[in-house]
């Protein structure tokens, strides 16, 4: 965001606060003292003071502080409101004028020392005079604002309506195709299809417009972290710069709201475990200030957010030691790098005891991984010892309309969010092997678990010898979901399922297709849960999906 835009935001915001201040003062003047009314002023005034300070308008900040002092005295009953009401009304005008000056020239920083002095004087006693100075009538109108505040729900409603419009349009297209053969009048049918095409374009434009209106620059989340990094770094006597890249990348507000927490954990980890103390960095020949880079970029329908640090990298030996000591792996096990990386996302890896000693990474990373999966996203880690670590999060641009892979099992069609899908492959029944009663497949030199969609959802139907596997990724882990057929990719509008009858395990929502049919959206998190219970090592025991896991364990014992 440009500085000038920040000023614009500040002025828009300030105009609102000033409005509240004005109307409350008028009410006080007319109706006399009323504590409730005074209370409504204090919040906006305080915000305005803080924002002024943040924008560097120090004199204004000091002035508003003085106004606050006056109000405080009124609330405490030291000064009657009648004595200071004129001064307060004047102060609103002073603020208004300052805002106007800033609007004309953001670099102006009007000096209000004189006004501060005046308002202090007024506290001492009535002088019976209001300021006689000429007033600029246009200042009451304030600067014209180019933004409006809209309840987010309205956008949700609009998007729903557009979603329905898309459905009807598809339906009309289908009717048109059927009619083309049926009616003899060629020019009429041509006109119809032409009209439908134009309507389709308009609807697409409308949909895009509303999607855009819901978007916010990712900076909205990013700005929350510099202060946190500074404070955490200071606590640990480290010096860290937090650098933004691509902070103007726009994301749907729903996604913006959901990524705050995962990012917080990852950044905190980078500060705690990634960046070394200045001394250690000097020995390694690195600059004494550590750098954490927070970057965002859009790639087709996804947004990629990275947290990169130039610290010591993940100490895999230590991760292994911790895992062994915590009983997550056996002492003679030598897991590969990928396995170790997936360990830092395991729930059992993080406990209170763990966080007090500086050991392997892992604080809250299980939560991170789960949250990202919930958003139909993916997280991967790349770490080079001595050089640093990069966490990469891939998310859909929107939670409301997502690209999905339509798959078929038996006669049922399900939608699988594309963002969770790595790739899909065609296999034969012979390619599937059974280990410890669970189906697996060899995929890129790894053995990964297979979940059958038909079994998972109790869908009946004959299986074929040749079918498809959808490979899902979560951190370094892979999982294959077996389906009969792939029906192509499609943008779908997600509608939540009513939970009157409880939430259905494995279903993330529903979407209405062009022909009016409802397709259910598979919850990829559920597939992961399904495979969690298959591991006997128990690293997932701390997982809060325990009930499901327990159920599967029981089944295993029966066999």
């Amino acid at each position: 965001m440009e500085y000038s835009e920040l000023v614009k935001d500040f002025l828009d915001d300030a105009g609102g606060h000033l409005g509240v201040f004005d109307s409350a003062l008028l009410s006080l003047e007319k109706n006399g003292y009323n504590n409730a009314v005074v209370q409504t002023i204090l919040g906006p005034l305080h915000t305005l003071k803080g924002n002024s300070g943040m924008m560097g308008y120090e004199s204004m900040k000091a002035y508003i502080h003085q106004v606050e002092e006056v109000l405080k005295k009124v609330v405490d009953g030291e000064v009657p409101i009648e004595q200071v009401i004129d001064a307060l009304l004047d102060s609103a005008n002073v603020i208004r004028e300052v805002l106007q000056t800033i609007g004309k020239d953001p670099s102006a920083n009007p000096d209000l020392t004189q006004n501060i002095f005046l308002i202090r004087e007024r506290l001492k006693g009535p002088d019976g005079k209001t300021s006689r100075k000429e007033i600029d009538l246009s200042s009451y109108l304030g600067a014209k604002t180019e933004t409006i505040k809209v309840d987010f729900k309205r956008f949700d409603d609009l998007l729903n309506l557009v979603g329905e419009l898309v459905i009807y349009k598809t339906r009309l297209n289908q009717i048109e195709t059927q009619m083309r053969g049926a009616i003899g009048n060629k020019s009429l049918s041509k006109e119809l299809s032409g009209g439908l095409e134009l309507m389709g374009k308009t609807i697409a434009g409308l949909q895009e417009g509303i999607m855009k209106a819901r978007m916010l620059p990712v900076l909205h989340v990013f700005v929350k972290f510099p202060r946190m990094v500074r404070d955490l770094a200071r606590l640990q006597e480290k010096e860290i710069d937090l650098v933004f890249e691509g902070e103007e990348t726009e994301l749907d507000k729903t996604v913006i709201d959901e990524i705050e927490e995962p990012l917080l954990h990852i950044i905190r980890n980078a500060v705690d475990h990634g960046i070394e103390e200045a001394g250690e960095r000097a020995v390694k020949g690195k600059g004494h200030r550590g750098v954490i880079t927070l970057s965002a970029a859009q790639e087709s329908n996804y947004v990629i957010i990275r947290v990169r640090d130039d610290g010591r990298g993940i100490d895999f030996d230590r991760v292994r030691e911790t895992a062994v000591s915590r009983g997550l792996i056996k002492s003679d096990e030598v897991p590969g790098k990928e396995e170790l990386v997936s360990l830092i996302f395991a729930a059992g890896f993080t406990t209170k005891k763990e966080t007090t000693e500086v050991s392997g990474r892992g604080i809250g990373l299980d939560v991170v991984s789960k949250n990202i999966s919930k958003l139909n996203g993916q997280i991967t880690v790349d770490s080079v010892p001595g050089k640093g670590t990069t966490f990469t999060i891939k998310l859909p641009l929107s939670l409301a309309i997502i690209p999905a892979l339509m798959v078929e099992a038996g006669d049922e069609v399900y939608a699988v969010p594309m963002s969770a899908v790595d790739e899909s492959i065609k296999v034969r029944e012979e390619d599937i092997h059974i280990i410890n009663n669970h189906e697996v497949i060899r995929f890129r030199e790894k053995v990964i678990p297979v979940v059958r969609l038909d079994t998972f959802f109790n869908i009946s139907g004959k299986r074929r010898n040749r079918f498809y596997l959808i490979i899902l990724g979560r951190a370094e882990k892979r999982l294959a979901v077996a389906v009969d057929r792939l029906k192509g990719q499609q943008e779908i509008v997600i509608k939540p399922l009513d939970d009157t009858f409880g939430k259905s395990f494995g279903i993330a929502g529903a979407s209405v297709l062009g022909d009016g049919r409802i397709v259910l959206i598979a919850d990829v998190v559920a597939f992961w849960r399904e495979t969690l219970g298959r591991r006997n090592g128990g690293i997932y025991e701390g997982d809060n999906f325990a009930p499901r896991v327990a159920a599967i364990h029981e089944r295993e014992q029966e066999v």
Partner: protein
Amino acid sequence: MSEIHLPASGLAEEILPRYKEKKRDLHLVTFNLGEEYGVPIHQVQEIIRVSGITMVPNSPSYMEGVINLRGRVLPVLNLRKRLKLTPKEIGKASRIVVAEAGDKVIGLLVDAVSHVIKVAPEAVESAPEEVLEIDTDYITGVGKLKNRLIILLDLEKLLRRENIEVAGVTDEGGEHGKED
């Protein structure tokens, strides 16, 4: 007591709004599930034919599935299963009664929709205690007409979570629901 017969189609969209306004009268939409049941007409939004129900896996057995009602995804409750009556195949006369219950809108799968009737308050008696079991407080009373009885249902109570879970205790889907 007056009785209005529905159009031959059984679709009541045209005539329903007329009766919605006079809430004070005990207007009922009645439907058949072996016995005749009734719900207050002001709760009924519309009555539609049965088509395109999408089954939802891992849900309670009385959850018939979801339907698309002009872009809205509505759950459909199989009333026979919910009331623990003998299940019956969906037939030509089967209808989905779209009704409001509290802040929810759901579909009720019934054998057939019978009538829209007006019952005088004095013709309604509370159900005899002997036939009620625990968790059947969704039966609010019995309307006594000249030659038949109408069992009055309270939809909100029918949907109340504890009731549902008691009913769905043997069902895996119901249990998963609780986990989340």
